[in-house]
């Protein structure tokens, strides 16, 4: 390629990405930088136009009073991702290798969560409350809805349901790239189907499975209505819920901003890892 041609290509690239880049700077980079700035101010003084800078005061409040919030924010999605791992990979395997029928129903079911967490949380919440579908179970076992709702397990269950499709998506694309002959050989050598799955398929699909695991974790970090509805007052102590409460209801934007910065850092680390493992956009 001649010099002139390559410099023309450079100009073309620049011209094409410039509008989007400008937009990205204005509506992503500047707002994010602005949260960082806002996190050093007292209450809503920043939005009022006369910022009162308090240094790292907001962060020290967070690292004394909100440690449990941060812990829950990480632990709930992590456990949910583990559940997805156990439930999702066998499903992905059965679907990819066409070992079960009803594929189209399952395929449709796997799109639902793309609609948003509002339906998953609202639907599950209604199902578990009295008058839902578990009434017969409640009357037989003597349990009531409080055994199921408004505790950390309910939040984790909601998260797991919401992100199961992502797990199936990632692991199925990894499994579909494994050559059938590996399974045939392992079966010929006397492994049972379950052994083949655990000792041959899972190790070969590991990169895709890890990517799916991190993706599930990352999606649930931003989950809001699932912990709010299923966790109730006692167990909705996660960062997203606290950020909305602190900002829109209590108007302590400084504190909310510093919590948002910490959440953003956790999310960016996990999405960077997904990006690195899946080699998206390559």
């Amino acid at each position, binding site marked *: 390629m001649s010099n002139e041609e390559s410099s023309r290509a450079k100009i073309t690239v620049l011209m094409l990405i410039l509008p989007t880049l400008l937009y*990205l700077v204005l509506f992503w980079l500047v707002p994010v930088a602005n949260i960082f700035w806002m996190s050093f101010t007292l209450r809503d003084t920043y939005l009022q136009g006369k910022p009162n800078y308090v240094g790292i005061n907001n962060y020290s409040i967070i690292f004394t009073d909100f440690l449990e919030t941060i812990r829950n924010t990480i632990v709930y999605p992590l456990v949910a991702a583990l559940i997805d791992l156990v*439930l999702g990979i*066998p499903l992905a395997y059965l679907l990819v290798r066409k070992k079960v029928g009803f594929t*189209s129903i399952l395929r449709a079911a796997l799109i639902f969560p793309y609609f948003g967490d*509002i339906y998953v949380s609202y639907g599950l919440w209604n199902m578990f409350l009295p008058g839902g579908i578990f009434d017969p179970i409640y009357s037989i076992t003597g349990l009531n809805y409080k055994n199921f709702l408004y505790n950390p397990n309910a939040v984790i269950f909601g998260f797991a349901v919401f992100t199961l499709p992502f797990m199936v998506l990632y692991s199925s694309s990894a499994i*579909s790239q494994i050559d059938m002959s590996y399974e045939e050989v392992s079966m010929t050598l006397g492994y049972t189907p379950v052994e083949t799955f655990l000792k041959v398929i899972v190790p070969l699909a590991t990169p895709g499975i890890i990517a799916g695991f991190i993706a599930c974790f990352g999606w649930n970090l931003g989950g809001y209505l699932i912990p709010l509805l299923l966790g109730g007052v006692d167990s909705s102590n996660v960062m997203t819920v606290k*950020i909305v409460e602190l900002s829109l209801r209590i108007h302590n934007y400084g504190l909310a901003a510093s919590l948002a910065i910490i959440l953003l850092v956790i999310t960016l680390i996990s999405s*960077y890892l997904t990006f690195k493992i899946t080699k998206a956009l390559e």
Partner: protein
Amino acid sequence: MKMFSSILKYLYIAILAFILISPFLFIFYRAITYRTSTGTEFTGLRFFMELTPQYWNALLNSIIIGVIVAILDFFLAFPVAYVLARYEFPMKKIISAIFIAPMFTPDVVAGIGLMGVFIRYYGLYGTWVGTILGLASTSYPIMLLPLFASLKTLDPDYENVAKTLGASPARVFLTVLVPLLAPAIFSGFVLTFVWSINNYLLPLFLTGGAIDLLAVKLYSDVRWWGLLGRVAAEASILQLATFLAVFFYIRLSGEKQATGLAF
């Protein structure tokens, strides 16, 4: 033994399918029934009739905003997808990661950040323009990914031939790229539309209650009036709009491509 394992297999997928589908179906069920002390009474469309014109207006607003956001997303995503698929340049990996980053930003974080700059600097707080620009900022990567994937598999010779024959870049775009990429464009369009009409968190921060959107109304109704049939009816309407968009999309583009699943 063989029968036992196949029963187990179908039990497993039946349970998973039930867990995934039932929340959505139960919302519909709640919208057409009423629970009394003696049992469950079928109410038909009564709860839908209870919705005031305000709700239908909010649905209309949601659809208008969803369509505009999807169109805007296309113009933001296409040039970047094209450059990433067709050109090599230094630091390409980092640059592509930066373009995708907004997708991974939690809505609460994007919301509080956009709210801050809208109030302090841009003067877009509580406006239609602000809501649309804000929604587009976190959704355009959803459009970018399918466009990139299709451009990557599309032979560049189609464009090169058109260029050699003297077509202008605009003409190549309109008569070669757009028709060949139609499935990907369509899939990006539906995904971003569905994503926008169901997003309640960003508008909650950006509209300041000045624009009625159905997802936002639904969110606050679910929070405060969650057990009323009217709320289930409201959720059903938004859900139905989403179902329809996805259904037509699957019909037109083939199921396999629609889900991006490998089966």
